[in-house]
């Protein structure tokens, strides 16, 4: 298993600003995943973050909007840039062996 710490746990942000979410894992992992969970919906993969290379983004998500850093094997950040109310969601980081482990999520509200 893995213990994943995410911060902030929640934030309320003004439109047009950016928020960086941090994810810390208690063990070294090759890949970390970032998901978005819009209100009342399931989890949608944003991107896969590998250490030492650029993140791989899923269809509908772009690096300019969701830049990701992966400076080492235990840490990653996701930035939500130039926010609009449509970005209001829960953002989750995850690591996986076969099953996936999740942080507690960051609940973002954009006003």
């Amino acid at each position, binding site marked *: 298993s893995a213990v994943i710490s995410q911060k902030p746990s929640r934030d309320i942000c003004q439109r047009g600003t950016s928020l960086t979410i941090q994810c810390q894992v208690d063990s070294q992992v090759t890949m970390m*995943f970032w998901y978005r969970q819009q209100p009342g919906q399931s989890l949608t*993969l944003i991107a896969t973050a590998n250490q030492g290379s650029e993140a791989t983004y899923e269809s509908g998500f772009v690096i300019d909007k969701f830049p990701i850093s992966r400076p080492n094997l235990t840490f990653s950040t996701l930035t939500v840039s130039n926010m609009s109310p449509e970005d209001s969601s829960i953002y989750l980081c995850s690591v996986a062996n076969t099953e996936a482990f999740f942080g507690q999520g960051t609940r973002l509200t954009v006003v």
Partner: protein
Amino acid sequence: GESVGLHLPTLSVQEGDNSIINCAYSNSASDYFIWYKQESGKGPQFIIDIRSNMDKRQGQRVTVLLNKTVKHLSLQIAATQPGDSAVYFCAENPRRSGNTPLVFGKGTRLSVIA
């Protein structure tokens, strides 16, 4: 594209009764399936998993059934308790390997009536 989905978006169950949450998947190449529970304000938590070489797996009060013929997955919760109230997601690993992201179904909200 292929996806994982659910038949029932909401389910209300009397305390003490058994709950059954269903999930349909369409990727015949998937060989690993997981059920997650998500309580309000928390990330998804692992409940139970099953590989495609099995059709049933039991845990504590939970059982997962896999029917590969009709590509159907179900989660059974015995003697449902108020603490079981949450959203439940099925997920599949479509690439038969670790370090790959899971594909999640839409989720079912389980409400337990005391």
